[in-house]
């Protein structure tokens, strides 16, 4: 019984993560906020794959070889961390650039208006 609840929850988590990946990609398409945001989408997709393999192991559909464990426990989590870091850093820079453009434009308009008054 415990196993079946875990399996059901596992499937539920996978569905939620697929939805998260979809919305993450939609944000990129909707706002065109930069290619960096795609890394966040990639990170969510890898998380989904990891959950899928974990479920496969739990249901004994997969066997955990040495290479598999290395990928599952080191490569994929590291990729998720790096992708999330780079993606969010890229988003941060984007928002920062919006702020810079807004400020610079405002300053230049002020200078232009002053110059015209003279």
């Amino acid at each position: 019984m415990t196993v079946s609840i875990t399996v059901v929850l596992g499937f539920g988590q996978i569905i939620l993560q697929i939805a998260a990946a979809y919305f993450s990609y939609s944000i990129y398409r909707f706002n065109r906020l930069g290619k960096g945001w795609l890394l966040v989408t990639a990170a969510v997709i890898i998380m989904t794959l990891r959950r899928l393999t974990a479920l496969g192991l739990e249901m004994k559909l997969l066997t955990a070889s040495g290479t598999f464990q290395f990928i599952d426990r080191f490569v994929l989590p590291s990729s998720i961390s790096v992708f999330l870091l780079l993606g969010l850093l890229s988003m941060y820079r984007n928002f920062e650039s919006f702020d810079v453009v807004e400020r610079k434009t405002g300053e230049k308009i002020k200078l232009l208006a002053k110059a015209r008054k003279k």
Partner: protein
Amino acid sequence: MVASEQRSAAIGTVTSMFILSAERYFEGIVSILKGLRGESVIYVTTNKPYSYLIRVLHENGISTDGFFFIDCISQHVGERSSDEEVNCIFLETPSDLTTISIAAHEAVTKLPGDKVLLLDSLSVLLIYNDANAVGKFSNFIINRLRTLGVKTILLALETDSRKDIISQIESLCDEVKR
């Protein structure tokens, strides 16, 4: 009515789109600018660098004193851009529509007096962005400026006029001139 008179008449409306032929493109822009009635111009350029535009406009007898340029191409093509130019903001690329919107909105709201925003051009934006994004961007700019009471002039190449997205944007404009 000659072309320049037609253009001048069209500028009296809030939002105008001009479909220009490639051969007489710049001539068309000069004619539009000469038809303005002393408004400040916010010139969004996506295909000619600021330094080139300034020179050519002066050569054609247009004073750029009342102009503010939003240059989306100089940095993209690696031309040196100076922060010291008071009447120009240099943006990184024509593909960043959000930043162009921010700069345009800031310029429109902070610049005093009557003003016109000239977007040169939808055809170039379509090279760097997908059609839906350009459609959303145009819709936002046109309607935002409409609510602010700012005249908007959009330019597009004749060769692009059959594209669905240009037809859709035309429907948002008060007047279309060919």
